[in-house]
């Protein structure tokens, strides 16, 4: 067993874990932060994306021990301080960027990482960036639209379908 300490969504946590505990498992089972989802076992689907020290990471591809000493953010930490939806979360709701909701946490975390590095991405840049996030419900159309809207771009002409 290894002791790990990290700051998750602003709160410091210390836990004793087995060395082979995946970060996704640590978040879900040890911290019961079940918003981080596991949709595959080959690091392809992206439902488990979280931020570690500000970088988007597929939490199924790292051990919890590797995150020792890190600052971690999950979907549970994306709300505004007053509990309202953050800008990206709100854009996903406004533009129907989710259906079953299973891929959604990873999509939101990936979108946040994209917009941090590229505040006004083009549609092609968004589609390219989402290569590692699979959604089976939405056909991505409204996810792309939501991310453009969250970046402050006008999507009203697209909305008129």
């Amino acid at each position, binding site marked *: 067993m290894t002791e790990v300490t990290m700051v998750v969504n602003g709160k410091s946590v210390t836990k004793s874990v087995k060395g082979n505990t995946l970060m996704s498992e640590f978040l879900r089972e040890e911290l019961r932060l*079940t918003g981080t989802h596991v949709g595959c076992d080959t690091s392809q689907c992206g439902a488990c994306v979280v931020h570690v020290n500000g970088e988007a990471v597929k939490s199924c591809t790292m051990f919890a021990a590797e995150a020792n000493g890190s600052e971690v953010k999950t979907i549970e930490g994306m709300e505004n301080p007053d509990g309202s*939806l953050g800008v990206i979360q709100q854009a996903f709701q406004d533009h129907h960027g989710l259906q*079953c*909701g299973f891929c959604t946490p990873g999509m939101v975390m990936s979108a946040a990482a994209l917009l941090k590095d590229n505040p006004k991405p083009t549609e092609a840049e968004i589609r390219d960036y989402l290569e590692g996030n699979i959604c*089976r419900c939405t056909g991505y*159309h409204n996810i792309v639209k939501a991310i453009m809207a969250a970046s402050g771009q006008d999507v009203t002409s697209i909305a008129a379908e």
Partner: protein
Amino acid sequence: MPKDHGIGASPKRREDVRFLTGAGNYTDDINVQGQAYVHFLRSDVAHGKINNIDTAAAAAMPGVVRIFTGADFEGVGGIPCGWQVTDKHGEPMKEPAHPVLAQGKARHVGDPIAAVVADSLEEARNAAEAIELDIEELPAVVDMKAALEGGATKVHDDLDDNLCYDWQFGSPADETDAVFANAAHVTTLELINNRLVANPMEPRVAVGDYSRANDESKLYTTSQNPHVIRLLMGAFVLGIPEHKLTVIAPDVGGGFGTKIFHYAEEAFCTFAAKACNRPVKWTSTRSEAFMSDAHGRDHVSKIELALDADNNFIGLRTDTYANMGAYLSTFASSVPTWLHGTLMAGNYKTPNVTVNVKAVFTNTVPVDAYRGAGRPEATYQLERVIDKAAREVGVDPIALRRQNFITQFPYATPVAVEYDTGDYEATMAKMEELMDLPGFAARRAASEANGKLRGFGVNCFIEACGIAPSNLVGQLGARAGLYDAATVRVNATGSISVMVGAHSHGQGHETVFPQVVAEMLGIDESMVDIVHGDTSKIPFGMGTYGSRSLAVCGSAMVRATEKIINKAKKIAAHLLEASEGDIELKDGQFSIAGTDKSVAWGDVTLAAYVPHNYPLEDIEPGLEETAFYDPANFTYPAGAYACEVEVDPDTGKVTVEKFVSADDFGNVVNPMIVEGQVHGGIAQGIGQALLENCAYDENGQLLSASYMDYAMPRADDLPHMENYTVDHSCQTPCTHNPLGVKGCGEAGAIGSPPTIVNAVIDALQSGGHNVEHIDMPVSPSRVWEAMQG
């Protein structure tokens, strides 16, 4: 102005808040106190004789609670099939046993052979590796035609051969043959509808729980229809009476058909929880999902279209082999028959249509309904052969379709269904308008200037949703009714809980259903909540599949709400000292017609529960009503789809440059959600056409068992927003349900594959390549090879 509430408005989805904040409650998020974990030892051969399973060493491993094998399930029922098809000789289909854990033989890669229940998942996995399995690999049958040859290896030793049924339907074969003999032109096409895996992003999960205190079992499961699971598992597999069995499907991360079915893992967890007196949890990995979730499609077909000298369609003949896999999944038998043969007339007035289907057992994962279920297979054949015919007789593919459209409704087809309403010309015209057909020549020239070939593809489709009525489907072999149910529970202060049999796993029922009830009562939507997914809370309903939720369960909800209104009017009449017939309900106020005297909704509901001033001698207190609704007919959404693709002649890569869908869904309650459903369906259809393929080798090894091998559509595989329009403005309301709705969930997946393939063939033809057909997925290698002649 678009409405801002009620029917026709697009309020933001209320369920989104929990999904966007990580507060959803999916089955894998549920841990029951004291739970153990199960790991299934699955067959790694496609066909094998189990000589011995030695679990002694494994049972002694740390943390092991108990190890189960097929022997533990000998007194237990098998997984049942929910639809008995009768073959063309009047004989019932072959229905082999489907044990929870393999008994004697394993019949596909992934077939569960043993199950280890342990304190932790890691311990369960480790112990499974210590099981000594003596399995003798046998030759496997994978190819359907080879499986039907004399002397082929049998999947089930107790059957004569691998034929499940040989089914014929529609016009008498000799009459259709006579039409073909006299046809001016016959177009023939052989094609494959590729095997797919539904791949909802949430893998399946089951948690069984048992209470000795009251002998009650509970199953949490990723299901589209918890009551169907309770009925099948309780009555046919485990023998648990329904009052002792609760099935809960909480938030479910997508279904697309594959979460309709009753699976062995659900029965196992329920059984093992009682046997171990401890909750038992199973969470599928994605790799397990590929080899245990029912697959979809997998038809091999020959279709022939007969035309007269004026290009009228006069006959249609199809011959299809449909893969059942190793066992019959819950609705497997109905998909190539009643969900496929009945749609073979399409949008056209072809007078003679004869459909032949042979269903075949192979050593592969069972195949069952996947988004569209039989209807995409029918549409793909028909719309591909029409395109080929248009080229052969030298007419425009749109004109040829138009000439043969059904234009009078109701219309009885030669394949037993009656379309109640539709306007195929309207959706075609809408598609033409949105596609900017006059601009195509310039777009093609621009593509060619860039070294690309550009093609145009069109497709029309009809689907049948909300399969019903129950007495008809019973005659056709269904072993269940296909009604649905809703209970409207009005609380004392006027808020409402609606318990529905439909299940929402992405469709947004929690938002849409209240729009309907609130509009009927004239109250705010926030006053209405939906309860679904828990058999202990909801009336017996059949769940969500086949685009049925609003058309069937929504209709039940309307009927129950009408009963509420009738009773509330009686109460209001009493409070207002007026005659019931004079009471009107508008904007949440009951008033006496022609006067300014009224009582509010909340006053009436309070009177129902605090009946001090109340006609107790005439009506009961309380305000709660249930309705069961059994539709008179299917609904028949239809549409016209078109796209333009570019083919890179150097690589064979196809890109979708422009896509338009013009659908007729009847009335639309929430346009935002309808458009989202179409986007999703089209993405899955484009996935089938260009990317996805579930592949087996000749030994029955599954080659595509992860997202590294099975190509799921990504964001950059789909058309960009400015060249993509989904339209639903053509609306011919359904004539037989109270909302006039038809269903929109599957249209995109039905309408898009032939559109794409038609466009690819057009592109290749425009480049001088005499290519008539490429099987899906139309991958770069297949296109490139076809171009080489």
